[in-house]
């Protein structure tokens, strides 16, 4: 019976398609980014200008950063809808800290921002895992509670740019020497994406996260620490949203109670467009970050082409549908090929 056990070479090639497709997805988004950028530049050469590209990268950076944390949560078959509110809370509280401590080292801004975010993430994660409440509900509640708390703290005030240390603001607008289109903010986010992407490939806890999202029951049966890993994913998502808050403050230098409103849905959209399965188990942080860049670029491109800002929402929605339809189509095709391929291997 050994003969029939040998899969045909064609089968094993097919079997690897899942992996290849993931990479193809990232390539596809890169292609879309280049295409949108190129076409828009043809119509409006200002789009490739120094300020425009800077603005593009700065704008996309925050979403890409949040998308990284969101990816970890969604891969576990959960969702974090509180990231926008967390970003707003962190931005305001960091600003408030600088207002009262004008000579504090700027690194404190990041420490405080990350701590605030991690705290909210820990609460989200604890409620989700300890009380087995669907994360959709938990983080939706957190979205409102955090925003309400923020409104209470802010009480109609606003942090102005003169309260923020100059050095801190520079992170938001300074560019890398010699590459005047590349802001430091983007460099920082690229580093975060690269580090997390590497970790997601290289560590057991990260592979556990994929296993949990792929088949939660099997994960528990295999003795994986499911609750702890899901908790960690929420803490990371919160921490990155908190870091995002500090960067938001550095970028805009002024903040009120509304910072980050509505970001959560843009972040989830970016993650899905970036090829992360909404029911968990697969997808990469690089894909999600690229998804954020693409969505952001389309926003700005429509502006540069003189299309009404209202249309950007419709386009974002259409892109989301296209991405999901594409996933479904590819998924069905691969499933069919794998099945017929497998069936064929039993008959010599």
């Amino acid at each position, binding site marked *: *019976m*050994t003969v*029939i*056990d*040998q*899969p045909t070479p064609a089968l*094993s090639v097919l*079997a*690897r398609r*899942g*992996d290849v497709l993931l990479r193809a997805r990232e390539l596809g988004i890169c292609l879309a980014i280049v295409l949108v950028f190129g076409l828009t530049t043809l119509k409006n050469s200002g789009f490739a200008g120094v300020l425009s590209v800077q603005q593009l990268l700065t704008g996309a950076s925050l979403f890409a950063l949040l998308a990284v944390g969101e990816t970890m949560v969604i891969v576990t078959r959960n969702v974090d809808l509180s990231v926008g509110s967390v970003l707003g809370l962190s931005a305001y509280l960091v600003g408030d800290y600088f207002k009262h401590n004008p000579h504090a080292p700027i690194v404190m801004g990041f420490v405080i921002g990350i701590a605030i975010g991690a705290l909210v993430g820990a609460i989200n994660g604890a409620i989700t895992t300890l009380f087995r409440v669907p994360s959709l509900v938990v983080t939706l509640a957190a979205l409102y509670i955090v925003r309400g708390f923020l409104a209470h703290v802010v009480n109609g005030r606003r942090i102005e740019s003169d309260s923020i240390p100059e050095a801190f603001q520079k992170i938001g607008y300074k560019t890398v020497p010699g590459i005047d289109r590349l802001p430091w903010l983007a460099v920082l986010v690229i580093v975060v994406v690269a580090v997390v992407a590497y970790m997601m*490939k*290289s*560590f*057991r806890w990260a*592979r*556990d996260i*994929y*296993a949990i*999202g*792929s*088949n939660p*029951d*099997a*994960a528990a*049966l*295999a*003795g*994986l620490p499911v609750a702890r890993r899901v908790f960690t994913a929420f803490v990371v998502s919160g921490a990155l949203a908190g870091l995002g808050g500090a960067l938001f403050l550095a970028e805009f230098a002024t903040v009120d109670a509304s910072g980050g409103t509505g970001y959560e849905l843009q972040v989830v959209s970016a993650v899905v467009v970036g090829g992360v*399965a909404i029911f968990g*188990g*697969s997808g990469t942080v690089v894909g999600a970050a690229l998804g954020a860049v693409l969505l952001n670029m389309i926003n700005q491109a429509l502006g540069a082409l003189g299309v009404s800002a209202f249309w950007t929402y419709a386009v974002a929605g259409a892109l989301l549908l296209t991405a999901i339809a594409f996933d479904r189509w590819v998924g069905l095709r*691969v*499933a069919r090929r*794998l*099945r*017929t*391929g*497998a*069936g064929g291997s*039993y*008959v010599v």
Partner: protein
Amino acid sequence: MSSAPDLTQTAEPAAPLLVLERAVKSFGAVRALEDGSVTLYPGEAHALLGENGAGKSTLVKILAGVHQPESGRLLIDGEPVTFSGPAASRAAGVSIIYQEPTLFPDLSVAENIFVGRQPLRGGRRLNPAEMARRAREVFARLGVHIDPARQARGLSVADQQIVEIAKALSFNARVIVMDEPTAALTLVEVERLFDVARTLCAQGAAVLFISHRLEEVFTLCQRATIMRDGRFVRSALVSELTIDSIIRSMVGRDLAALFPKTATEAGEVLLEVDRLTREGVFTDVSFDVRRGEIVALAGLVGAGRSEVARAIFGIDRRDAGTVTVRGKELPNGSPRAAMAAGVALVPEDRRQQGLVMEMAIDHNVALASLDNLQERGLIRRSRERLLAADWATRLQLKYGRVKNPVSTLSGGNQQKVVLAKWLARGPQVLIIDEPTRGIDVGTKAEVHRLLDELVGQGMAVLMISSELPEVLGMADRVLVIREGRLVAEIARADADEDSIMRAATGQLAVSPA
């Protein structure tokens, strides 16, 4: 792994690997296991036999560490052990292969084997090369080839089980429990699984094998333990047992005949299938089924048998060919039209396709007959209950209350509910896919008697079955499908295991259709 004493034939070695003695387990008032006892020696394949509800699953779950027995004792290598949970059982060298393995579809095969304990290199980082190497090593020990780098998604059930066995082996499991592993496998896959099991035994492991297919027990196992009603009945060498003696021990009575198909006179053609084709799945399939006839569609799983049934019933569209029922051609892709023409389809997977598991028994029975039960657009609950009660009596359904969810029934009784659901429509043509998969011997015989009775009353039955004894016992004619083509039609008189298997595997053409 210690040296494996030779015991494959008759001699029992001195030291058993695992002993379970007089284990008792109750769930509420129900005593699922009154005397669970089994002894496993290294290097043996040991069958655990019993009807559904005999306590096999409970015994397995005790070995798996999922349930803790209330009394009794468990010895491994002569040392008493208690399993606090699945992890403890696994650490003691016991691995369970379930009928439906639970893999991670998005992860690679290698990662599935080593999840949670992947080999590491510096800085606690994963070492994918080492992981792939070890996975290949395990597969080599099993004598099978599965690409460790491929995604688990899309693996056949058989390959998924092999991955589970590889996982067990990578844990250095010495006791491997296979809980009905063959129920969803093709014959070729069963052969391969048996080869793997024999390899494990040769390496000194003990395999506890559970199956409803008794002939498999004779193929694979050296000893067998038989259970009835939660109690140990007997352990014996398989060579000293016969199918009859096993069944007597299992049911505590003689079954007159397992497959009571009585001879019937075939009447006019009720179902005619002409050059039916679905691209890439099956091609040019033509046959007919007459009144009073059971026609079996045999072949390996994946040959396209169920797909033909789905296309006849209109669940899948056909690309070419016609389906004619009582002289009227059925429109393409319309189950409603097929139902209206008097066709019923009992699908192979009752949990996924046949039943709404959390819905009450009576709702499930009535599901296909709602058109007849309604008055002015509202369903009459009383008529629904009556219908269900009527069929429950006719099929001797064992149930608590008709309001209970179907999920509370045993597998055999669930199958009866699916049958009732379709028979309630009074079909002329019954297509039934794997009529007795995973149900116990007693219920099996009841289902067979029922089918016999139905064709006696003038129904035409198209039966798909992977169990050759069932095909040989029940069918008036056997159609064999291989790789999507009808390759043989064998009359009852000429049909035997050999002729069907040859046609199904393409080793020799038998009177091509």
